[in-house]
């Protein structure tokens, strides 16, 4: 059961960042490393752990090897939902705390 492993794998912030990157679509090791302050070998190592945990899978595409979120795993689904709700709650907070319209603010000042 890889589900428990997935929680452990995502506890590491860098590994979590690599996973978040793959939520944006499939990418090669080089592409992932480009956007991060981490070396390629380090990214490879993180990918290996994510793969062992059933969160990502890899595939040869032509001369490239690309990694992507493995949606067959419940761990990956759960991690995806976790990020999904995090983003939605942030959007909700922004709307809830948006300053009132100009008219309302003017009224309050009196």
């Amino acid at each position: 059961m890889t589900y428990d492993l997935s929680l452990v794998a995502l506890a590491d912030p860098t590994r979590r960042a690599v996973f978040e990157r793959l939520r944006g679509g499939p990418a090669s090791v080089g592409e992932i490393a480009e956007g991060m302050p981490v070396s390629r070998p380090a990214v490879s190592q993180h990918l290996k752990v994510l793969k062992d945990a059933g969160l990502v899978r890899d595939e040869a595409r032509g001369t490239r090897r690309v990694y992507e979120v493995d949606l067959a795993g419940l761990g990956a689904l759960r991690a995806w939902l976790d990020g999904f709700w995090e983003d939605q709650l942030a959007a909700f907070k922004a709307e809830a705390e948006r300053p009132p319209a100009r008219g309302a603010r003017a009224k309050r000042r009196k």
Partner: protein
Amino acid sequence: MDASVMPAYVEPVRRSIVVKVGQARAFEVFTARMDRWWLRTHSIGKSPIAEVVMEQRVGGRWYERGEDGSECEWGHVLVWEPPRRVVLAWQIDAQFKYNPEMVTEVEVRFEPRGAKETEVLLEHRLIERLGDAAAGFAKGVGGGWGGLLEVFGKEAAQG
């Protein structure tokens, strides 16, 4: 459904956030005004989202209306307790399709933290029910969800 292939339990997703508004306001924005904040990239319809609707009652529909006028169900309201709690049935499966046979639950509680702050606690549970659909999805990833993830990632990067 074959119960034997589904894990019995998956830890629910739990997320919380503190907003600097009172309980009633927080509840209203979350429910009646969901259309104002719901990230538009999270759509399962064929047409881009024109409106997100959560009907304000038990049994009320929760759905998106596309720009072409089509409606796409997400689920329905299971518990309606303004301004403290709402529970939604999330009936979108792992292939990002509405599945009337499958129900996962999203409970949202609004707890006052003084007069001007509210802690919003969200729990998405019964995720294991997504497992069956996911298992059938094992081979051919790429289509719907892959595309959605791609769009989602771009949006997140801009944010």
